[in-house]
C-alpha cells in the first residue's frame, strides 16, 4: 500500500518527462508474517476434480493467515525509505534477506556482483525484527529465507519462503505506464511473475521433520501462487492488452529448478537479468529462467489474439500429474479488441474439430 505522500507526489508530477531529481522520496511501511500451514488446492479433471493438500512455509501480509504461495509482492520507488517488519509466527527459526538475483552469469546473459539490500538476519520463532533501508536502484529484488532446515536438510526456500520486491524509478509507482529504469525501456503496463515449484515429497518431509535425500523433482507449479486456468484469467498475472501496448514482464524465479517459459504469439526482449542491463538484447520465445534469478522482458503487442504462456516442460504444465495445469498464463489481446468472433483469424471462438 502506497502512503498518501507518494500518491500526492505522483499526481503532482504526473508525466514521465519530469526529472527524477524533482520527485519526493516517500516512506513505505510493510509488515510480513512468516507462517506455516497445510494448504489445499483443487485440481480440475475432465469431468471431476481432486484436492491436493501440502505443507507450505512462507510469507503473508495478513496476521493469522496461512502463507501466500509465491509470497507477497512489495513495491517501492528509488530513494524511498522502506520499513519492513517481519514477524516469525512459525515454530522454527528463520532467516530473512533481501537482494537481487544470483550474480552468476546465466547463459548468454552477463552478471555483476550481488547487491544485498538487507543482509541475512536470524529471527527466532515467535520473535520479530524491523528492517529499514533506502530503496535501491529500480529493478526486481528477491526476499527469502536463505537458511536450510537442519533437521530435514531442506532449504526453507524449497517450501515457499520467498517473495518479490519491485523498485520503480524515482517518482514512479506501480500501476501506471513507466520505464524499467530511468531512461530504460518503457512500458504501458508491467507485471511481476513470481515462479514457484514444489516437490510434494519435500513438502511432506518438511512437515514430518524427516530428512529428504532424493533428487528434487517438482510436482506443483505456480505463478504468483496460482496455476492453470486461475493464473490465465487473473488480470494481475495475465495481461489484457490492446494492440500497440508495450508490456513488461518481471520474472522472479523463487523455485528450485529452472523454468523455460514459452511465449506464443510474440517474442520478448530480454533487457535485464538480475538487474544487470543487457547489452546483448535477446529476442526469445522460450526463456529459461534459472532458480533465484530475475529476468525482465519487454513485449511489443503487435497483433490481436489469445496467446498462452507456459513452462515448456511436461512436468510443469501438469499439477500433480494433471494436464493442462501448472505454470500457465496468457496474453489476452481480444477482450479489449472486440472479443471472440467465430472463425476470426486472431480472436476465434475455440471449437472441437476444424472450424466450419
Amino acid at each position, binding site marked *: 500500500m502506497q502512503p498518501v505522500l507518494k500518491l500526492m507526489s505522483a499526481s503532482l508530477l504526473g508525466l514521465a518527462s519530469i526529472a527524477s531529481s524533482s520527485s519526493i522520496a516517500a516512506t513505505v511501511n510493510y509488515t510480513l508474517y512468516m507462517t506455516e500451514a497445510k494448504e489445499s488446492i483443487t485440481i480440475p479433471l475432465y469431468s471431476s476434480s481432486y484436492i491436493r493438500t501440502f505443507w507450505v512455509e512462507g510469507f503473508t501480509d495478513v496476521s493469522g493467515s496461512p502463507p501466500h504461495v509465491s509470497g507477497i509482492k512489495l513495491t517501492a520507488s528509488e530513494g524511498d525509505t522502506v520499513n519492513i517488519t517481519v514477524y516469525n509466527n512459525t515454530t522454527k527459526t528463520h532467516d530473512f534477506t533481501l537482494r537481487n538475483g544470483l550474480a552468476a552469469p546465466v547463459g548468454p546473459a552477463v552478471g555483476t556482483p550481488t547487491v544485498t539490500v538487507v543482509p541475512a538476519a536470524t529471527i527466532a520463532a515467535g520473535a520479530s525484527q524491523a528492517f529499514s533501508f533506502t530503496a535501491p536502484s529500480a529493478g526486481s529484488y528477491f526476499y527469502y529465507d536463505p537458511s536450510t532446515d537442519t533437521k530435514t536438510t531442506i532449504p526453507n526456500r524449497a517450501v515457499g519462503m520467498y517473495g518479490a520486491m519491485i523498485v520503480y524509478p524515482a517518482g514512479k509507482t506501480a500501476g501506471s505506464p513507466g520505464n524499467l529504469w530511468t531512461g530504460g525501456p518503457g512500458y504501458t503496463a508491467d507485471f511481476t511473475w513470481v515462479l514457484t515449484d514444489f516437490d510434494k515429497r519435500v513438502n511432506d518431509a518438511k512437515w514430518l521433520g524427516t530428512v529428504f535425500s532424493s533428487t528434487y523433482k517438482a510436482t506443483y507449479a505456480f505463478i504468483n501462487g496460482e496455476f492453470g486456468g486461475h493464473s490465465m484469467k487473473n488480470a494481475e498475472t495475465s495481461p489484457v492488452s490492446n494492440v500497440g501496448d508495450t508490456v513488461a514482464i518481471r520474472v522472479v524465479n523463487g523455485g528450485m529448478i529452472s523454468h523455460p517459459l514459452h511465449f506464443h504469439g510474440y517474442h520478448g526482449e530480454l533487457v535485464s537479468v538480475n538487474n544487470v542491463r543487457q547489452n546483448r538484447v535477446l529476442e526469445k520465445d522460450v526463456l529459461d529462467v534459472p532458480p533465484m534469478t530475475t529476468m525482465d522482458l519487454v513485449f511489443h503487442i503487435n497483433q490481436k489474439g489469445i496467446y498462452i504462456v507456459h513452462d515448456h516442460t511436461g512436468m510443469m504444465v501438469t499439477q500433480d500429474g494433471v494436464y493442462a495445469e501448472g505454470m500457465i498464463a496468457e496474453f489476452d489481446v481480444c477482450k479489449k479488441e472486440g472479443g471472440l468472433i467465430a472463425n476470426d*483469424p486472431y480472436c476465434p471462438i475455440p471449437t*472441437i474439430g476444424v472450424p466450419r
Partner: protein
Amino acid sequence: MKNVFSSHKLVLSVLTSALLGSVPSWSAVTPVTVKQAVDLTYRSISLKNAVSGATESITAWTFSPASGSRSGSGTGGSADASAPFPGPVLVFREKDMVEYTFNDKCPCESRPSDHPYAGHTIHLHGLDVTTQQDGVAETSFTVLPWSSYTYKMGTREAGSFVYHCHVHTVLHQQMGMYGGIIVMPADSVDQNKSFTGSPNTFAKQYYWITAEVEKSWHDKAANRDYGDSVEFSYFTQYNPQHFILANYPIDPAALGVGTTTPGRGLVNPSTAGVSFAVGTKNLIRVGNLGYLNHRLTITNSAGASVPFDVIATDGKPMRDVNKNLAPLTAQTKVEYAAGERYDLMVTFPTAGTYTAKVEYLDPSTKTPTAGGKGVLTQAITVQ
C-alpha cells in the same frame, strides 16, 4: 492483418538481383505461395534404453510427408514402417505464404469426438502466427482423426523453429509428434546464410533435433490410458530412459528442384554420418523437443573443445541494444531448454574425426540424467 511483406527488403532484393544479373525464382520480389502437406501416422521404432542398454521397440505417432496410400477410420488403420521419425524438417523461405495441410491419418485416439483432447494440431512454435493458426487446442481447434486442415501463415524473418502437436502435449510429445522448421532467407544471395544480412556464409548446414522418451509416460498414451476422470499422478516423475538425437542434413538448393517453389521442401532425418570440409564455416541448428535441458559440446579426437559462435536463437539473430549483430563468439558449450533453438557457426581447422556430445540434464542436479547415462554422441568426419 500485420503486413508480412517488408518494403525495404523488396527494394534491396531488386537491387541485388539486378547487380547479379539474374532473378532467382524464390526472390523476395514475388511472394510465393508454398503448399505442403504432412500426414500423422504411426509406426514402431527402435530406441536404446540407456539405463538397461537394451534396444526396445516403442510406438511412435509421427508426422510424415503426405501419402495418398494411408487410409483407415476410427481406431482402424495400418502402421507405416516407412514413416520418418522424428517428423520431417519443413523448409520455407522468408515472406512465403504457406499453406500447410495436416492430415490426421493416425488411429491413435479412442476418445469421443467431442472430447477436447480427441484430435491433434500442429503448433508452429516460434513463428508468432495468429491464434487460429497457432495449433493450441484450447484457443483454436483440433483436427479430429481422419480429417484434415490447411494451416496458413506468412513467414517473417529467417530462423530456426520447431513444430509439435499442442493437444495434451505432455502425452503427444512423448509419442513423438514433433519436428523442425527452417525459414531460409528469401533472397538467393543469402542462400547459404542463416538469416538475411548475416556475415556468415556456410558451406553445409544441419538441424539437430534432440528429445527424450520417458517410457511410463509414453505407454500411458500408447495404451490410451489417459486418466481423464480419475485421480492419478502419471506425470510427476519424469525419468527418461530413451534419448533422441535426430540429424537432418539441409541443402535448400536441392529442395523443390523443378517445382514452382524451389528451395522449399521436407527433409527427413538421416542415418548417414555428419561430415564437413576442413576449414569451412558450417551451420548447426539445435532444437530441443524434450523436457530436459540439453547441453551440446564438440571435441576433437584428443578431447579438446572445438569452439563455435552462437549467432541466433529462437529464430532471431543475436543483436545488441543498438540492433547491431552481436554473436556470442568462441563458445565451448550451449545449453538449450525445452522448446529453445540456437544457431551455431563452427569451423573445423584440421581433418579428422570429431565428436558432438549431447547431455540430457537432470533439472535439479544439472548432470546427465538416467544415472549419468543420459548422453548421446554424433561422430563428425572432417576431410
